[in-house]
């Protein structure tokens, strides 16, 4: 179901339809916030807060002006900046353009999407593909992955780097 239909359904009173949006964007949004805040738990908290804030303001959302994904990333980015300011961290952004560009979710066409999925499935050893999917698509943390594989978060980090290098090579 496309975003616009989901939003319309929620606005008609079907609150549960919001699960679809949370499910669809949570992994990317958590990683986005984790990247800004340099902390996984804070990243999850802010991503959660962003989803709640977006739900409360959903009647203001206009699918004609922006995609839901772009909107929720903006909300989350602002919440991250607020938190950094509250914690007296020095929030610095070089210019609004790079800031804007950096906070946008990527949009790729169906063909590229399928090709990327295929390449991820072909990574060797297969656990590299599993790691990419679990982290980037399912929203699992390094800590959770470390527990699944019975190893340390550092090892997960190393595997993840290798997986991404291999994937970049396959795509180039």
């Amino acid at each position, binding site marked *: 179901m496309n975003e616009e239909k989901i939003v319309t359904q*929620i*606005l*008609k*009173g079907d*609150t*549960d339809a*919001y*699960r679809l949006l*949370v*499910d*669809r964007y*949570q*992994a990317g949004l*958590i990683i*986005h916030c984790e*990247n*800004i805040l340099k902390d996984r738990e804070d990243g*999850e*908290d*802010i*991503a*959660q807060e962003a989803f*709640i804030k977006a739900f*409360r303001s959903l*009647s*203001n*959302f*206009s699918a004609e002006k*922006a995609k839901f994904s772009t*909107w929720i990333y*903006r909300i989350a*980015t*602002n919440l991250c900046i607020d938190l950094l300011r*509250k914690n007296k961290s020095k*929030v*610095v*952004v*070089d210019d*609004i353009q790079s*800031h804007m560009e950096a*906070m*946008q*979710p*990527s949009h*790729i066409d169906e063909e590229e*999407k399928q090709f*990327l*999925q295929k390449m*991820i499935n072909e990574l060797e050893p297969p656990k590299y593909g*599993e790691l*990419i*999917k*679990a982290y*980037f*698509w*399912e*929203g699992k943390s390094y800590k959770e992955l470390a527990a699944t594989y019975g190893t340390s978060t550092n090892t997960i980090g190393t595997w993840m780097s290798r997986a*991404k290098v291999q*994937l*970049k090579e396959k795509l180039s």
Partner: protein
Amino acid sequence: MDEPRKSAAQGEVVMKLDKFDRKIIAARPDGYHSSTRFTDAVMAKIRNGEILSSSVRNMNVTKKETFMMKFKHLPTFAIIAIIIASTLVVSGGAYAAYQLLWPKPEVRLSEPKTSASGRKEVTISFAQCGKQSLASGYELKKNAPITIDEVPMVVKAHCELDAISTWANKEFPHDDGHQPPEMMKAFDRTMLWTSMATHIKSRNDSTLTFAGLTKYHQADTVLEATSKTRYIADGHDVAASAITADDPVVYITSEFSHITPDAGCNAMHCSMSSTPAVKTLVAVVKLSQPFQYYDQLAWQSLAERMACM
């Protein structure tokens, strides 16, 4: 629409999400499922009408030190008198609190001032807000639907909802929403939902219709009351008849469902299906103030003012 805020300082870039990472995220196949733990937590908070504020608030250290310094310089007889009076007040308060299901929130604010940015602001002089720590003051946002005089009521309402939710979570058995570690096995789950209604639309011997929040496009909810359903007003259990049709209420439901893994589920990727939830109305709580103070928009009209460090 939310626009990204520009930071005060210019300089290094702190937030660039790798382009390649974003591409991987965008390549997620349709129908791929993410963590139900996170989704459940978001949905629970949405249903609870809870406002998250994860920031840690700071205490006004200067005020505390000044009070202690003054206290130390009092004559001995005055200190003894204060201790006796405090003991009486505290024991009286403790007795009253013992009778209540949750501590009654109370908020006192200073006279409103106009901040440097031209907005009205107030400072909190006293707040009893359950486990929550409040900011030291609040500022009214531009175009706020409330007046500065209504801020104490809005803060009190926020504290009251938190107290009710905390009490309900302790009082009624439920699961915490986390998926069990053996994710490939079926399991039962009981979730607790705390929802708000502007008023009870209608009721008969066994059925209550709670008016949905039309502002947020929520439909009315019809629930069956059981012999175990509790009715609460002013922090006490009351008879069902004590809560009337026009009262603003919070209603608490317990929802049982059976979760089973879908075909093809394995240790790394597993999507789950749930049976339709069986809802039980466990409590109806009459709110102490008019509904307008509990509205999310009222609370969102306030910006926190932090104490100077």
